[in-house]
């Protein structure tokens, strides 16, 4: 497969502020029903500015991510419609969509814009109403997105010339990575099933302590309510049905609504922007990206291998230097596969780490400490920046009772989505 040599940034860029809304089913609650794109994005953007110690006039440019603005918001140019909400009227911006990978490319875009030298301080935000669609011809009302409508729009992710016609690529997203892992590592069906279930349990355990996560009831609680003494019996039961070849209900995203934002600036200007803020800036060391459309065999694995190779090569960081790992796991298997490809978990042993509970927030190899897509939720474009928000909070030691044991200094985040982009980057707390 084609490979890319990535060069180091022309100048160092650091994260100085982050913001995130709760992930929500907005139309299901009176308090949130009626919230709009500008209000969600605006909240996340202003929280990021407050966190960074900057005001809108300090920011030179902003990036706007939304996976499906036409379907969800009736917008073709969603970036244009919301700048006024966070004080950036008249400032230039651009919209981008890489579907579920949008929030990961959001950081890459912002860093490139500053590293090039054109801008000194950039905001990058993402918003998504994954659970509802705008009512046409009404100023703010939304209606629940039906599963039929959701599936109709996700079909747009796939090449219409061949992939949809061949009937395989779009269906393999659910189980291909699990089949690949089980076959190449020699697991039994039962071991693979338990591994998938344990990832769901760990994600939920993490989310149970995150007040902005969408689902906080642990599987242990759900099992007890259903009359099970053992949570694994519950996870293997019809309460958690298999709706894939390997995948169960607990391993699938909770699509919802939300927004998140980040502010980056040139590292040598951190003090200028942050003023008397006490937290340390976090440097973006490098980013690796690849993409394989869905007729490519093992598209997630193949593209992740290339993106990870790039980011290690350009940063010089070794897998053993990673203290914490995030993976966009709207299909839970991503969590295992990407952590092992990255070397964060040892080859062929990752499933054991997961089954021993070592990847939960209180383990020695924490992954997705916010609960990932199956528990924190999946507001499609916004999810990647929500993961970055969590990583930054963990690296500052600001996560309260779900704070990981050892203060993380170096993190890897691996984005995935859009049938299929991969964007992997490494961040490190400044000395």
């Amino acid at each position, binding site marked *: 497969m*084609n490979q890319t040599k990535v060069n180091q940034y022309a100048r160092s860029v650091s994260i100085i502020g982050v913001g995130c809304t709760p992930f929500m089913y907005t139309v299901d609650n009176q308090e949130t029903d009626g919230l709009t794109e500008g209000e969600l994005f605006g909240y996340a953007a202003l929280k990021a500015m407050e966190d960074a110690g900057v005001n809108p006039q300090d920011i030179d440019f902003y990036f706007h991510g939304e996976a499906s603005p036409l379907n969800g918001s009736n917008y073709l140019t969603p970036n244009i419609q919301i700048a006024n909400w966070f004080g950036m009227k008249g400032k230039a911006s651009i919209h981008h969509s890489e579907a579920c990978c949008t929030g990961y490319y959001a950081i890459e875009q912002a860093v490139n814009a500053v590293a090039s030298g054109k801008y000194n301080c950039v905001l990058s935000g993402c918003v998504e109403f994954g659970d509802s669609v705008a009512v046409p011809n009404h100023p703010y009302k939304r209606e629940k997105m039906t599963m039929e409508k959701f599936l109709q729009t996700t079909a747009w992710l796939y090449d219409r010339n*061949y992939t949809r016609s*061949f*009937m395989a690529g779009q269906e*393999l997203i659910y189980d291909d990575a699990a089949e690949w892992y089980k076959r190449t590592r020699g697991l039994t069906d039962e071991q693979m099933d338990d591994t998938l279930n344990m990832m769901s349990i760990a994600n939920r355990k993490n989310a149970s302590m995150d007040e902005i996560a969408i689902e906080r009831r642990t599987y242990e609680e759900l099992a007890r309510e259903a009359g099970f003494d053992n949570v694994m019996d519950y996870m293997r039961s019809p309460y958690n049905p298999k*709706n894939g070849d390997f995948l169960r209900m607990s391993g699938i995203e909770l699509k919802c609504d939300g927004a998140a934002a980040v502010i980056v600036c040139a590292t040598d200007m951190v003090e200028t922007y942050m003023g008397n803020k006490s937290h340390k800036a976090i440097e973006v060391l490098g980013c690796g990206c690849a993409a394989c459309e869905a007729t490519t*065999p093992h598209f997630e694995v193949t593209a992740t291998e290339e993106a990870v190779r790039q980011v290690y090569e350009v940063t010089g960081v070794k897998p053993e230097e990673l203290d914490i790992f995030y993976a966009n796991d709207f299909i839970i298997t991503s969590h295992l596969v990407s952590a092992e490809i990255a070397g964060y978990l040892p080859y062929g042993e990752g499933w054991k780490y997961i089954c021993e509970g070592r990847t939960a927030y209180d383990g020695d190899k924490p992954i997705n400490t916010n609960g990932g897509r199956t528990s924190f939720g999946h507001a499609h474009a916004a999810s990647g920046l929500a993961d970055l928000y969590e990583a930054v909070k963990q690296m500052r030691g600001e996560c309260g009772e779900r704070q990981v044991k050892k203060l993380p200094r170096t993190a890897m985040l691996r984005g995935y989505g859009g049938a299929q982009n991969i964007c992997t980057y490494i961040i490190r707390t400044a000395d």
Partner: protein
Amino acid sequence: MAIKLEKVVQGFYDFLEEGKIMGRRCPKCGAVEFPPVYACNSCGSLETEWCEISGKAKMHSIVMPAALSSKPEYRELGKYAYGEVELAEGARCNAVVRGISRKSRKELLERMPLDVHAAIYQRDGYKTVVFDLDEKYLG
């Protein structure tokens, strides 16, 4: 050869109507692109040219359809699975392979990679390509 603005996609489906499964061969390195596209993804050549696919292939992975990963119209395929298919010409792609059931999967996994062959399959309004398990595995 010269770079041409050419209807490769329509050409591919027109060939299927004639009973031919076509890919595109790179004149520089010989790699075959399937499904067919303009350029070579192996050596970077800017051009490729039509070539007929023998239809012989090997299947390297098996994923069974389930509630999430099937559609009502796929029932007409009969028993089938998804997987990585490698054409005799070298190209690899994700494809449907007919003739595999949940029951037969276990035995078939022990005999991987499986010999399969391409077939032209009628969908609603156009023909496409699927693969069939070779007869030696059936029965």
